[in-house]
């Protein structure tokens, strides 16, 4: 009897410690793997600027390729599908379909750095208790910036599936800028990814990220002398804008949580300068000779201003 008690105690401690021993970085790594490699669906509420959108969400992972599908429950009725980095949006009422792609994969729910330990000097990852979200026990992880160049976040992680159940982004005044919340989450019958599969998935992710063309940027006439610590150059491409058909060079830098785009285009008849804000997204525009430079991203104002003012011509 005593042996049985000790055995049960050891078993329970082993299972209990499995989660409790995780630090913030490890939680982020696990949730990153889970949300990319599992099949699940549910209902997600997106809240921003006092507006609420409720959508049905489905995520599948087949043959190393992620697919996300969002179906709105309210007008305008639309279905947004992401197949890796290709995105299509079907507006059901007008039957209009929009297709586009982005150089890198972006989740509709949340994106997290694969190696959060790299951001040790920029963020504090705090394990902050447990709460219930969508009737599921969730571990709260606070992602707190150590400078004023990025936003704080909180992440609620399902302790069973390790999927993100809720995300909140906070402004510098502490007010919530954005929320993403699962009100219902269902796991589909799929085998849990093995370590080998996770490694393969990481490799797949990396291959998508290898669109980064830092070398091309180094050879461009532009120079970015300074940017916030922890940010990296992700890609540099030449884009043709959808409506204006203008040719714009686009450099994206990111720290894994936040991204900043720097756009370079020929100055028009009327140049644009100064700050602009839309929710968590800020932009700062300036003119260098005949070049219009705009830094834009979901970072505080001082960050886009810092980045834009760091641009110079070689």
């Amino acid at each position: 009897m005593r042996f049985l008690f000790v055995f049960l105690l050891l078993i329970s401690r082993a299972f209990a410690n499995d989660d409790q021993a995780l630090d913030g970085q490890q939680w982020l790594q696990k949730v990153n793997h889970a949300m990319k490699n599992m099949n699940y669906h549910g209902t997600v509420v997106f809240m921003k600027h006092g507006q609420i959108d409720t959508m049905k969400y489905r995520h599948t992972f087949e043959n190393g390729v992620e697919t996300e599908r969002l179906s709105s429950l309210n007008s305008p009725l639309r279905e947004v599908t992401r197949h890796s980095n290709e995105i299509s949006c079907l507006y059901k009422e007008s039957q209009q379909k929009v297709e586009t792609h982005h150089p890198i994969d972006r989740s509709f729910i949340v994106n997290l750095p694969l190696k959060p330990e790299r951001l040790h000097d920029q963020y504090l990852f705090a394990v902050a208790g447990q709460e219930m979200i969508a009737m599921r026990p969730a571990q709260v992880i606070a992602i707190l910036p150590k400078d004023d160049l990025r936003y704080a976040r909180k992440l609620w992680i399902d302790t069973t599936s390790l999927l993100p159940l809720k995300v909140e982004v906070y402004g510098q005044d502490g007010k919530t800028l954005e929320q993403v919340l699962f009100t219902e989450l269902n796991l589909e019958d799929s085998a849990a990814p093995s370590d080998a599969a996770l490694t393969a998935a990481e490799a797949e992710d990396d291959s998508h990220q290898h669109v980064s063309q830092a070398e091309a940027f180094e050879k461009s006439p532009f120079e970015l002398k300074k940017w916030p610590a922890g940010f990296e150059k992700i890609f540099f491409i030449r884009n043709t804008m959808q409506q204006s058909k203008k040719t714009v060079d686009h450099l994206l830098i990111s720290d894994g949580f936040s991204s900043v785009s720097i756009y370079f285009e020929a100055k028009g008849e009327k140049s644009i300068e100064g700050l602009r804000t839309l929710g968590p997204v800020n932009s700062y525009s300036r003119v260098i000779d005949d070049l219009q430079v705009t830094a834009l991203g979901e970072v505080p104002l001082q960050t886009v201003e810092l980045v834009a003012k760091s641009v110079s011509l070689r």
Partner: protein
Amino acid sequence: MQAQQFEKLSLLVDDQLDKPQSVQLLKSVRHDPALQAKLQRYALISQALKGEQAAVADLDFADKVKQQLKSEPVYLMQRKKSDDQFKKTSLAVAASLLLAVVGFYAGKMHNQVQTLAQATTTAAAEQSPAEQMNAQFKEYLQAHDNVWYVNNNAGVKSYARLASYQSR
């Protein structure tokens, strides 16, 4: 006979005497001090029984009031002018004021319309760069994050999360 009068007085105070008899009784009371005293007493008792505050006037209360009215001085004041004349003058003044006010505001409105038109013209002239800025901002948002692009028909509101990327 007097007993019947007293009984009628009691009925009068209790408001149970019909009108012809009441009038006849009051005529009798006017000329009979004994009935007047009896009526005053009955009224006082009735008020006391009903719990009302007693306010019994003196017997000569009415006479005193009558004398006061007779001794009231007569003031011979100048007669007022005709109201019609006053109304005509008032209408003329009001009409003049109205015309002045209408004229003033018409001029002001004209100026305001001109100002508004100028402001609208100015705004229209300034709207161009604003629209240009909005369009550019929107395009930049679309290029920054596809989430914005697929949602652009519903404005620039985001239905999804922040843009980010997978850092290696």
